[in-house]
């Protein structure tokens, strides 16, 4: 919860990451994934959570909670960066069920795709992250695998967030979202600078596509989307991309919009809450 100009806002963050790679040994490389503020916050508090009774995993999870506390984030979707981060993501949701929604990760090129999809049900996962860059796929070249994921997620009320802005064209996602129109889909970063127009078009044509503001500096395009009757404010989501981007800057993107306090509240939290209620059906409460 933050206060800005005497108004309170709950923060529901649709885009955060935490990794099992957060360890002392790898601290010199952490700047590749994280801002220095979060690196120092995490490692300065290293011993605080280190106890005999806590496992390594629990320590890492408590550090994530510390970061959320530090930036006053009330609830967050955690997206695994690498395949090895699935466990910490699932465990975060178990440990902090009212605070963290731990997404899974599935690669459309994976030979064990069907098994990986079944695992999502086994672990009770609510959403999956797709990353064309890190998973080295493209929505056009690997449409079979991507289609299988979209179909499975729609059938099982699992939502998807995909990185956008590089390494694949957003326009190739549009036919899939039209086919699987009951699937909740978040356009991660809304195409960044290079693909903002494609992200806008996707949201305009697909009512199940939501625009994540994290990392995207073009506030004028979000304002256009808010005023566009085919998109509207309901499909704009607040995201920070913790620990890579600075949460205070991402928060300011919403505060800076020339919209009402209630509309800012929608972007900061209500829209994500409604998105989860709508597409996760009875799983979300």
């Amino acid at each position: 919860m933050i206060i800005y100009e005497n108004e309170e806002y709950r923060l529901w963050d649709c885009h955060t990451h935490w990794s099992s790679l957060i360890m002392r040994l790898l601290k010199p490389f952490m700047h590749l994934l994280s801002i220095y503020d979060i690196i120092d916050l995490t490692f300065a508090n290293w011993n605080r959570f280190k106890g005999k009774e806590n496992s390594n995993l629990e320590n890492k999870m408590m550090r994530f909670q510390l970061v959320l506390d530090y930036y006053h984030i009330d609830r967050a979707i955690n997206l695994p960066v690498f395949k090895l981060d699935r466990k910490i993501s699932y465990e975060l949701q178990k440990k902090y069920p009212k605070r963290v929604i731990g997404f899974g990760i599935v690669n459309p090129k994976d030979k064990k795709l069907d098994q990986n999809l079944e695992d999502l049900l086994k672990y009770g996962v609510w959403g999956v992250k797709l990353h064309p860059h890190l998973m080295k796929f493209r929505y056009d070249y690997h449409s079979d695998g991507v289609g299988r994921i979209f179909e499975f997620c729609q059938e099982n009320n699992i939502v998807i967030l995909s990185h956008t802005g590089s390494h694949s064209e957003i326009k190739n996602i549009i036919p899939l979202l039209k086919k699987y129109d009951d699937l909740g889909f978040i356009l991660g970063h809304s195409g960044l600078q290079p693909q903002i127009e494609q992200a806008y078009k996707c949201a305009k044509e697909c009512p199940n596509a939501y625009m994540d503001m994290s990392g995207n500096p073009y506030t004028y395009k979000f304002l256009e989307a808010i005023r566009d009757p085919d998109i509207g404010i309901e499909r704009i989501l607040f995201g920070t991309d913790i620990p890579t981007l600075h949460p205070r800057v991402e928060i300011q993107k919403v505060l800076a919009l020339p919209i009402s306090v209630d509309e800012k509240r929608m972007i900061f939290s209500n829209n994500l809450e409604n998105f989860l209620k709508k597409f996760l059906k009875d799983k979300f409460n």
Partner: protein
Amino acid sequence: MKQKLDLDIEKYKIIDSHCHLTSNFEDFQKNLEIFNIENFCLMPTIIENDFNNLSNYFKKVKSIVAKFKNACNIFGAVDFSKSPEENLELMLNQRDKEKIKGIKFHYEQNFILEKKYLRPYFQVIEDIFGYDIPIYIHTDWPLVGERLKPTKLKDSFSKFPDYFPDFKFIMGHGGGSGAYVSIWKVCKKYSNVYVESSMCPTTQSLEEVIWRIGDDRVLFGSNFPYCGTSIEVVKILSMYQVSDEDRKNIFYNNAKELFEL
């Protein structure tokens, strides 16, 4: 627990090294007042098709110049649909009539990124302005290759200081969304490179320039009206282990010196 986030910006004076025209004059003025912007650099934009219609851009700029006089610094551009000789005439006109403080390049101007092609155009700039005015290079070049990767700085921005080491260059948007990591290395390699902060995705890459290179190479830019000035201000205020003096340099002193204001 709740955190109060109201902005405390009164102690800073600002020179905005990157903004654009807006059809709403009142908004423009309000933006200057709210953020204590003493001076600003107005640049052509691809969004308004300014590069293809420079005469119209300078016509639009006139009303701002008339209103803000000494606060307004105009960036011109090369017209790549015309020969270097024709640009000589155009730029002489720009120099004499407008208060040109720099030249902006945008990759969508369809120039060829080769020394042989660019040399005559840079010769024109040199003949008219000398090396005094900085050259602003927009970053965020198109995604490339089958994997649609962001263009690396070494294949885009860095070619300019490589080809024309006597000029001063501004790296627009802190390297852009795909190439912002380790921009300090570019600053280290080229002592004639400045980094403009608008749209730079993270505070981290700007902090590294301050820590590793120095506090005299980062310029504050808003990219108003396409980005929010308050967002860009918060970015500078949120920078980690950066002193108040460094912030004053980013917000004001560096631009004052570079643009000789």
